[in-house]
């Protein structure tokens, strides 16, 4: 059989239409499209795709089930490794992982693994209630999971399937972490997260919202309440600013605030929802990552006339997914590369009026391997804007670590762990996701959540005297 060189296109909302709504941009494969795409898979024995997957999904296995039209079988295969397939099918950076390793990609476009994963997951969601997996008898062990983002959900999902009793403590009023407050509706509909969280709950995981651990309980208090182990997956919840003049002017947002108001608090539905947001006519978003792309696209949908993305390096160095950059371009985001803000300008009433920027050129590669941007002397210029969104990354939120003196953190405030297990310096405590690695991806957080789950379960099952108290 001759292999089609290109992926089957996934239907999408047209750019002109989608910038006027918050509905999902990518619409997903029909059954026919999924069949056509699944047939492109070579069913490699060695499955390099699976090896490249952080949670090691049996990719040829689930794709084979799709070609057999056994969609229940396909989703079952995926869920052996990944309890959150509808999310991962949407936001996982497949182009750098499974699809990059795909044998087809040597000659053609790789198999659209992410789209097929999404197809199987959506098939199950549409069908109604997901099939519940049989659970083993209870081990009688209790685990507290702090945070409810992708790392925590995966950790909880594994532990509960091994018979441990899990309680998730979420600081915000809704579970999902960055999936709920950070990633916009048009990229990951909140209803999907709700259903995947419901699924985890249906397996027996208890979810408590509005619990700020470190304030309401310390980790030691959780132990004294009877928890046998703790997983910390609290994310990188500290916004970064550039430390330039004018950052406290009205109209300057951290990306966290801009996105939280929009996604978690639904400011785009103000005044039906109570939380407002300021948008103005001209918006500048600073930064070149996925969060910057999300913020830019949100700004357009909130009604900004012009959105400029300001990035200090060139397109090649952008950390954002190629697909997200393209989405932003198609929707009309204007890119200003090799440009760096120097200060934010304001009026008498303390409102933003513009940004003074300086042009940059690329110098020698820095420790990240990317070329270091160097300012070009005397090249300053001003852009008129009403709103500035700082999307230059997030750091470690110190709230929990500072309430836990015996939890070792590094000089940036990230929790120090044993790489192989996720174990922290504190007995009975594991950690994973962005609070360990700094801002990364949903799938890497999930992988670290699962790695910790294995280690935690082993620890709980080991006889007390065999536990490593070093």
């Amino acid at each position, binding site marked *: 059989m001759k292999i089609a060189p290109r992926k089957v296109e996934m239907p999408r909302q047209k750019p002109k239409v989608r910038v006027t709504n918050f509905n999902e941009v990518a619409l997903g494969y029909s059954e026919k499209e999924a069949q056509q795409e699944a047939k492109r898979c070579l069913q490699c024995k060695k499955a390099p795709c699976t090896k490249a997957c952080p949670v090691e999904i049996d990719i040829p296995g689930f794709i084979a089930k799709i070609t057999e039209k056994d969609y229940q079988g396909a989703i079952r295969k995926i869920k052996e490794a990944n309890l959150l397939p509808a999310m991962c099918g949407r936001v996982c950076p497949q182009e750098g992982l499974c699809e990059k390793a795909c044998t087809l990609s040597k000659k053609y476009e790789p198999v659209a693994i992410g789209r097929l994963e999404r197809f199987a997951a959506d098939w199950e969601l549409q069908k109604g209630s997901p099939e519940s997996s049989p659970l083993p008898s209870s081990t009688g062990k209790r685990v507290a999971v702090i945070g409810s983002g992708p790392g925590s959900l995966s950790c909880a999902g594994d532990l509960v399937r091994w018979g441990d009793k899990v309680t998730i403590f979420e600081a915000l*009023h809704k579970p999902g972490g960055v999936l709920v*407050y950070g990633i916009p509706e048009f990229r990951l509909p909140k209803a999907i997260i709700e259903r995947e969280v419901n699924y985890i709950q249906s397996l027996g995981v208890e979810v408590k919202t509005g619990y*700020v651990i470190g*304030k*309401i*309980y310390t980790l030691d208090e959780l132990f004294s309440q009877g928890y046998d182990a703790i997983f910390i997956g609290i994310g990188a919840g500290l916004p970064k600013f550039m430390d330039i003049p004018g950052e406290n002017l009205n109209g300057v947002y951290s990306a966290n605030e801009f996105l939280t108001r929009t996604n978690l608090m639904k400011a785009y539905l103000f*005044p039906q929802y109570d939380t407002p947001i*300021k948008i103005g006519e001209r918006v500048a978003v600073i930064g070149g990552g996925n969060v910057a792309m999300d913020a830019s696209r949100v700004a357009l949908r909130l009604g900004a006339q012009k959105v400029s993305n300001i990035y200090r390096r060139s397109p090649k160095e952008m950390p954002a997914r190629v697909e997200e950059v393209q989405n932003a371009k198609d929707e009309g985001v204007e890119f200003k590369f090799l440009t760096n803000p120097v200060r934010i300008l304001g009026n008498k009433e303390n409102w933003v009026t513009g940004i003074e920027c300086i042009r940059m050129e690329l110098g020698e590669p820095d420790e990240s391997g990317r070329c270091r941007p160097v300012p070009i002397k005397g090249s300053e210029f001003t852009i008129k804007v009403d709103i500035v969104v700082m999307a230059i990354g997030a750091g470690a939120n110190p*709230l929990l670590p500072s309430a836990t003196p015996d939890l070792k953190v590094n000089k940036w405030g990230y929790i120090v762990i044993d790489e192989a297990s996720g174990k922290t310096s504190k007995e009975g405590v594991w950690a994973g996701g962005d609070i360990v690695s700094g801002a990364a991806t949903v799938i890497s957080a999930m992988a670290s959540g699962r790695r910790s789950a294995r280690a935690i379960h082993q620890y709980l099952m080991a006889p007390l005297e065999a536990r490593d108290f070093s």
Partner: protein
Amino acid sequence: MYKILNKQDLGPSIKEFLISSPKIARKVQPGQFVVVKIDERGERIPLTIADYERDKGTITIVVQEAGKTTCQLGGLNSGDTLSDVIGPLGIPTHIENRGTIVCVGGGVGIAPVYPVARGFKEIGNRVISIIGARTRELVIWEDKIASVSDEVYITTDDGSYGRKGFVSDELQRLIEGKREFGLVFAVGPTLMMRAVSEVTRPYKLRTIVSLNPIMVDATGMCGACRVSVGGKTKFVCVDGPDFDGHQVDFDQLLSRQRIYLQEEKKALQHYNSLHKHGTLK
């Protein structure tokens, strides 16, 4: 869900709520706050905890109706529930022995002064309280404040009760009376806290103010509440809410508190229009 156990009208548009939350009541310290979200569509607003009873599992908040959320809250009654009450948040007030403490409360800010005054009193400080409001009906919790103070001074802007003038004027008088004060602690409208800080500045009298900026998550994640203190940006939700009043950039705080004035008006109009048609309780 968090149940309102009791509601009391303290004055025109000022309401006191007794809320059941044993876990917060067990942990709260003077100076800390909660984030309240009324229902599914509600915004998250920070409210300082004005009192608590650990054994009964209750906390008390006092709210003045101003915008949509506080008006909606003011319309709730004993037996109603709030979808979220999150806390205790912020760093507790540093309660220490400093001799004589002056506690200053303005308007609805009188209530959160109470646990702080009580805290200072309990460890052996002499506590002088100055409380004030626009007019007599808005002076709240006089008895409670008196019960934890050695002296109480009252002011109203219109002179309808106590001495005519501002709490900061009263503070000025006390300081000019040549008495030794170890610390001034102030809660209230930002303009009042600024005035208090300006009164004490020439005397280098240590002054702690409890700031009340706009917040969203209130756990240090969004930075909405940032304010310059001593030239450095601080997040009030996790670095505060208490700061050295002589270091706070009050102008910046005032302007940041007004970011959403237009939207707040719109939200209130929207609420009132629904309210009239009976779609909301």
